Each structure stands twice: as C-alpha cells, then as structure tokens.
C-alpha cells in the first residue's frame, strides 16, 4: 500500500450531507404516532369532563393537520436536517463576519441543563444559585465595560439596541427635553438605525471619511443640534477599523446635551484592552451569544446585555438582581423611575445564556479574556496580511495607519472587473468546500464586499486552509468561471430560484400554501 498524499489543504473532495429529505408532511403515515401521551388518571377521568367542557363555539372541530410519524422517523428526519446545517461545531468559522461565531464550550451547555426546570416566579429564596450567577455576571460585565449596572432582559443585540434607545428616551422624557434625533453611521449595524426608529427617533447617518473610513467629527458637529438625543455607534464598525478619536465624538455630543451609546457587538477584540465607559459612553450592550461564547442557536435564544452609567440606572427595565450581604433578591426599587422603561422582555432575561456567559468568563479569567482579544486580533491581522497579498483582494480605508481589530471588510472588485465573478458568486462557491462566507450588510457601500472575522477560535492551520480555499476559488474564477457561476455543486441544494420570493402570487411560506398554489 502506498501512503496517501494529504498535503493538499483544500477540501476538493468535500460534499455536504445531502439526504434529499422530504418535507415533514410528506413523511406522514396515518396512524403512526411519535409519543404516548396517556390519559387522565382513572379517578380524574371518571369525575371530570376534560375537554368535553369546552363550550361548543370554542371546541376544535377537526384534528390539527400535523404529521403522523413514529418517533424514530421524526428523529431521523431532524438528524438529517441537522446534518444539512453547517454549524460552528463542524466548520471553520471565519466567513460569518460581524457575527463573532466562535467555539461554544460543551461544558457550559451541560451546566446550563441544570436550570431547565426552574420557573421564573419561584420564590427568590429557592433561586439563590441562579440569582448569584446573574449578579456575578453583571459584575464581570461592569468590570469589562466600566458601566455601573446591566440588564439581561434584551434577548439579542437588536433588542439591546432597542433597550438603549428606550433608556435614552426615558432619560430625556424625565428631563423634560424634546429630543427626537439619533445619529449613527452607515458602517454600524442596521439595527442601530432601525431599532431607535421604532422607539420614535428620526435617524441621521454620518458618512465615512473616504480615506480613513471613520466617521468625521465635523460631520458629527454639523448633525448635532438641540434635537439630538444620542449618538449610537459601533467601534470598530463593520470595517474593523477602530476610531481612536471616539472620545472627542463622545465629548462633543455630551457638550450639546446628548447621550452616547456604544454598540459593542464587535467587542471581541477589545476585552481587557479598552472600555466603553472610559471613552465616555453612557450606555452599551454586549452580545453574550457572540463575544461571550454562548452558542448562536440558529439565531437565538441569545442575550444583548445592556449596561448603563449610574445616572441612567433608574430607567433600566426591572427587576435588577440585588444582594444584601446575605441573600440575592429581585430588585424592583433601583430601576423604578416612573418614566423608566419598566419592561423589555418577560421576567429577567435568557437565563441559560447568562449562565453560559458566567461559565465562559470564569474559564478564562482576566488573562484569558485578554488573550481572547489579542488572539482574535492576531488571527484577523494574519488573515488580513495574507489576503492583501492576493491581487484579487483589496481593502478600502488603508491610510497606512489603520490596523484592523477583530474583523475586516474587503473588496473583490478587482476580481469582478477581471472575471465577472462577484462576491455573491464566491460566496456560493465557498460552500462547496464547507466554508461560510459573508458579503456585507445591505446596502453594499463598498463594491463586491467580503467580510471575514476569524475570532480567537480557529488555529493558524484553519486560517491557512480558509486562505488556500479562497485562493483556489479565485483561480477557478479565471480558469473555470462557469463552475462558480453555477455553484453550489456540493452543498445541500443547488441555486435556489428566488423569483417567487417577492411575488405574493407565487411565494409559499408554509406547506399548506405551497400545496394550494402548486397543485
């Protein structure tokens, strides 16, 4: 036998699991069942009417049209769908820029299992363990950000932004000031504009400086007025460039009576390096499901923990978790301003995500968090250096001084001009190698954008594999562009015909509608 050559690092033999799995309704067989539910106990059944008591007008007339499947067949179906999903556990997560997709430690998931059967209304004395976790996690986030208090109610980053906007609104209402404008930037997350708009604010965008890509202080000054409630910004923004003048922006907004809110969704490269409050921010949020290692869950459950400086604590949604030296308790007094936010999410937040965050922080400690930040920046700058050596890849806002932090937005405009292959084509082809690849938020402000964020999780070898794969695909763009245009070929499905997606006559949002429209 000859030794097998595995020196090639690009997975040209990859094929994602593809089961040709039917829609679950197509798997239904009349009479099969997935679980035995039982019946009311004999004494109860004898005495009680059960569902027969439902008034006629409210009684269900026919059985719910659900699939009828034995348990093994349900499990097999979902196991196959899981295999057809490229979670972070199975691929090298570099391609989902801005999403901070990192390793989620399994031990944290197992620890979180232990609060499965806790009811949010059980008395505080019976919940001292989880309340301590809330309290300590809040202290850790306060240390990391410099803020005074945190709420865990927001169930994701966008709801964190909405919470920040709600706190800002409450603050000015309390002061009797009618300020209805929020200033943000085009490279901050779309929700930095969309969520405050729901809270009633008009949104003003700052355009980037064409050389540095950073917001321009003169533009900020021109945008500021007595209408300005707040400046909401990410730093670094999606470009991965840190605005070193951020404090001047914050100071200026404060000088005209506004507040400053920090979208810290991009905090991964800054843990233990610099703090929101030190730059003067009044409010910020962290994505515990991103930066703090809790899994993303296909898009939640999650937590956008939102912190404020002392003046704003009374406007936070209630309750906070207090500690009187002996016991932990739900504190409705501290955040009790009559004009405050009162409530963002039911009860206290996504407790299992808070618990996983506690575990993650305690697994790393201050030195580990610093290592997370530094290594995510090392990984990103290593990737950046290697990619900038490729003729296909360019990057805007390189004034010779801009070092990327934890992510970078690149441009493939050279490749597109030369070959006609654009960033959307590369995205589809990268899937043929088991790789995610992300373009940009919409609208694209840069031509043919590519946004990559390695985090601290991949190894150098993993990053090299990602780079080699990109190079391989770029080569294909010249030598065999058709294979890219028609990609993906080795993913679960081929190119989706999206022509129905914006057509009310043709779209099919559920199986019943599909069956009705396409007989």
């Amino acid at each position: 036998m000859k030794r097998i050559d595995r020196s090639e690092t690009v997975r040209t033999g990859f094929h994602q699991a593809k089961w040709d799995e039917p829609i679950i309704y197509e798997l239904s067989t009349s009479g099969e069942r997935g679980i035995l539910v039982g019946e009311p106990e004999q004494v109860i059944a004898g005495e009680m009417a059960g569902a027969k008591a439902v008034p006629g007008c409210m009684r269900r007339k026919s059985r719910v049209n659900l699939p009828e499947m034995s348990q093994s067949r349900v499990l097999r179906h979902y196991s196959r769908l899981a295999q057809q999903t490229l979670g972070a556990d199975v691929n090298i997560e570099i391609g989902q820029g801005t999403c901070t997709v990192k390793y989620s430690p399994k031990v944290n998931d197992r620890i979180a299992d232990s609060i499965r059967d806790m009811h949010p209304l059980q008395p505080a004395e019976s919940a001292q363990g989880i309340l301590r976790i809330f309290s300590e996690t809040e202290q850790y986030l306060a240390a990391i950000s410099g803020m005074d208090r945190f709420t865990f109610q927001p169930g994701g980053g966008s709801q964190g932004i909405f919470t920040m906007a709600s706190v800002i609104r409450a603050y000015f209402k309390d002061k009797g000031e009618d300020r209805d404008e929020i200033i943000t930037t085009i490279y901050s997350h779309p929700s930095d504009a969309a969520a405050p708009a729901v809270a009633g604010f008009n949104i003003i965008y700052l355009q980037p400086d064409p050389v540095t890509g950073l917001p321009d202080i003169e533009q900020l000054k021109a945008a500021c007025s007595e209408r300005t409630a707040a400046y909401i910004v990410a730093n670094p923004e999606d470009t991965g460039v840190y605005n070193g003048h951020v404090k001047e922006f914050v100071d200026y907004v404060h000088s005209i009576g506004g507040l400053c809110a920090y979208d810290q969704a991009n905090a991964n490269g800054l843990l233990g390096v610099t703090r929101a409050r030190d730059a003067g921010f009044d409010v910020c949020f962290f994505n515990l499901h991103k930066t703090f290692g809790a899994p993303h869950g296909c898009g939640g459950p999650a937590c956008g923990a939102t912190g404020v400086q002392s003046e704003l604590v009374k406007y936070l949604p209630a309750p906070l978790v207090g500690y009187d030296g002996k016991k932990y308790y739900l504190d409705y007094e501290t955040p009790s301003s009559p004009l405050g936010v009162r409530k963002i999410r039911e009860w206290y937040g996504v407790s299992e995500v808070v618990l996983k965050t506690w575990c993650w922080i305690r697994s790393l400690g201050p030195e580990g968090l610093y290592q997370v930040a530094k290594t995510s920046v090392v990984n990103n700058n290593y990737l950046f250096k290697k990619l900038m050596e490729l003729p296909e890849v360019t990057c805007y806002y390189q004034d010779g001084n801009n070092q990327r932090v934890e992510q970078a937005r690149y441009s493939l405009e050279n490749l597109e001009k030369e070959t006609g292959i654009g960033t959307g084509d590369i995205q589809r082809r990268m899937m043929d190698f088991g790789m995610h690849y992300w373009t940009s938020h919409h609208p694209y402000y840069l031509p043919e954008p590519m946004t990559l964020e390695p985090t601290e999780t991949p190894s150098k070898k993993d990053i090299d594999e990602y780079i080699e794969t990109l190079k391989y695909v770029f080569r294909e763009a010249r030598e065999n562009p058709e294979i890219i245009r028609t990609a993906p070929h080795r993913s679960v499905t081929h190119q989706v015909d999206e022509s129905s997606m914006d057509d009310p006559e043709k779209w099919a949002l559920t199986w019943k509608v599909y069956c009705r429209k396409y007989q």
Partner: protein
Amino acid sequence: MKGFDSHPYIPDSVPEIQEEMLREIGVASLDDLHKNVPELLTLKEALDIPAAFPSEMALRREADRILSRNADCGKYINFLGAGCWQHYVPAICDEVNCKGEFLTAYGGEPYNDEGRFQALFEYESMVAELVGMDVVNVPTMDWAQAAATSISMAQRITGRSEILIPEYVDPQKVDIISNYTEAALNIRRVKCGPDGMTDLSDLAAKTGADTIGVYFENPGYLGVIEEHGQEIAGMMHDSGALSIVGVDPISLGVLEAPAEYGADIVCGDLQPLGIHMYYGGGQSGFMATRDEERFVMEFPSRLFGIAPTSEPGEYGFGDVAYDRTSFGHLRDKAKEYVGTQTALWGITAGVYLATMGPAGMEEVGNIIMANAQYAASRLATVPGVKVDPFGSVFFKEFVVDFSDTGKTVAEINKALLSRGIFGGKDISGEFPALGQAALYCVTEIHTREDIDELVLALKKIVA
C-alpha cells in the same frame, strides 16, 4: 498584562505559533496590536474579575455547587404558570436542539444551512395548521414581543391610532407592549365582565374610527376560555378594525383555531411546545396571518419560503420579501427591526408538534383540562377558599381566592414552600379587586397525588 498561554479555547495562544504569526504580520509583540486605541483609552490594569478556574472539572464543580442552592420544579410540586408553564418535554426535543449543528449555526445561506431553513419552514407550516393561518414568522423573543409586533403590524395596516386591550392581560406584557409601541399608538383598556371574559358592551363603546383593533387572549391570562371570539371579530371588522388573538398553543388540540373565529393576526408563546422553562429563558414568540400581501409585508421578522432550485426535484428555501426587514436596504425605514431572536425554539416547537401529531395534541389538551378541573374541584373543599370566581370554563389556569381564609397569598405561599410546593402566582397586587387571589396552573405533568398533596397542605395551613 500577561495573556493565558495554550488555553484550550484559543488554539493560537500557543506562544510559538503566536510569535510566528506576529512575525508574519510584522509586529514585535501583542502590545503592538490595537495601535489605533489611544493611550488614554487603553486599560492599564487587569480586569477585576476572578482568575480562571484551573480546570474544566473545577468550573463544573463550582458551578454545580452554586446552582445546588436552587430548588426547581423537578424537586418541588409546582403550580406556577402565568406565561411560563411546566409541561412535559419529550426527550426527542432536547435530543434535536442539543445537536451541535443546530445549536451552533447562525446566519448561513440556504445552501449550506439548508437544514436550518427547512426545519424552520416546517415549524412555520405546523404552527400555521395549529392556529388556522397561512403564514408564521421565524420566532421572535417572547409572547409579549409577538403581541407588541402584532399590534404594530395592525397599526400600520389600518393606519389608525388606538389599540384596545382587555383588563385581564399580564401586566408585564402590557408594560412591554406599552414601551414598544409608545411612539406609534395609544393603548386603551377594556373592562372584563364578571365571567372573566371581555365585556362586549364596553368593547363596543370604546370602538371607534381610531380603533386599530383589539388584542385579547384565549385562554385569557386568568385562564378563562373566551367564548365571544366571533362576536369580537365581527365588531372589529364592522368598524374596519382587526382582531388580534393571543393563544397558548398547547390548548389548540382541543380549542378552536383562532382563524375560525375571525382572528386577523394570531400570536403566542412556543414555550409549552417542548421547551424547558429555564427560569424564563425558554420563551419564544410567534405570529401568524393569512397569506395576504397587506399582512405579509408588515412582518418585521424573517419569513422562510420554499422554492425550486436549478436541480429538478430539489427543494430550496429562501427569505420571502427580505427587503421588508431591517436586514434589507431600508434600514430605519424597514418594518420595525429584526435580529437574533429565538430560532432554536422554533425548531424545537416543530419537533414537538411532529412528535405529538394530531392525536397527541388532542390528548394532552384533554388531560390538562381534566387535571385542572380536578385540582379546582379539590381546592374548593379547602375551608375559606373560593375557586374560579368567574365561573367560566378554564383551560389550565384558574384563580383561587384565599380572602376568606384570613391569610394572604404571600403567607400561604410561604407555608407551601416549606412543604416543597410552589403555590400559584400571587395576583393580589396586580388585580386587587379579586382579593387575596392566586393564579394556579395545572398541566399534564401533575398527578392526582400532587394535587391531593397541595389540598392537604392547604387544609393544614388555613386551619
């Protein structure tokens, strides 16, 4: 500050590797990174958080030690509900939502995350059948957010300014709706009658040209099955308004689908469908409408649709009308906002519904109602205790009035706690007119012994 070398979660913290990478980048040390962070903003001291546990085992040991100070509804007999309910979670639900591929996926495309798209499309399809609608969203945060967004959608559809909400709705939900919709509309409360249902004459009196519609729940917050769904919808439709109905989805194997009594938008919480309570972390909101453009285009959520691919015979998936969402081109001009919410619980609810099937959903509804009726009938034998002051049919929750026992609910619940029982939610502060009242929740997980033990304990406590 010194970093943490060779940490198991950070492969490139191996010093030799890191040095090699730094050389490649062209910087001498970790200090040369973050060069755009000015000195003034650079943190000089180590973060004030405890040192790392020396091992995974030590983390586990300490976490277990701290969490052992919790009691839970496995150890205690639980009668708390009020929006987070203890139901049986089939093992298969945990099996699926713990699969790493689902647990750690995020925002991939419908090609390599096809399974995530299909699983959520199927969840949409099954919940649509449950509520009698055509369109269901990729889930939002919780029921309260789903209600707030349903109301906001109705506001945009009607172009009107006032939503009517009956008196007996969870106050924390009203707070959430109120904060969320403050900039867009007014909330006006409608009385409930002595039967616990929406007072139709008050509703009629308050319905006018500004009325967006009504948001009511069935079963209501205090457990009562609302019998006038059709009349309420008719009243709204006659005045050009909409009927928005909040439901407990586990009731819908035995209760009528809201679309059948005229609902225009349905919302609710998926948590009863195979999701653990997680101290409030299992909530997951859904919304549903008919397949009409004027409704669909007002959803802020992602909506996954099915479509053909370039390969004959192959299903593909994608985002329907993506540009309505704030992920599209419109940003602040989009429909509200979207972001990370509770997708994993949507998949889980789908697993639950497929596992239960039509028979299971009907059976579980019947068991829940029978157990709740049994509990109510036994509690009525406790001296001084009045059960179900509304006298209406309830699903799994009902009000218990302890006023005539001479004890407060707080005192009674404290005494129950010492006997290993979580008594019903104290609602004497929320609804003082109902007296020293508690909201009890009984489901399929309760045995006759559990209920008899509660009754026995109460008899001793009030004696």
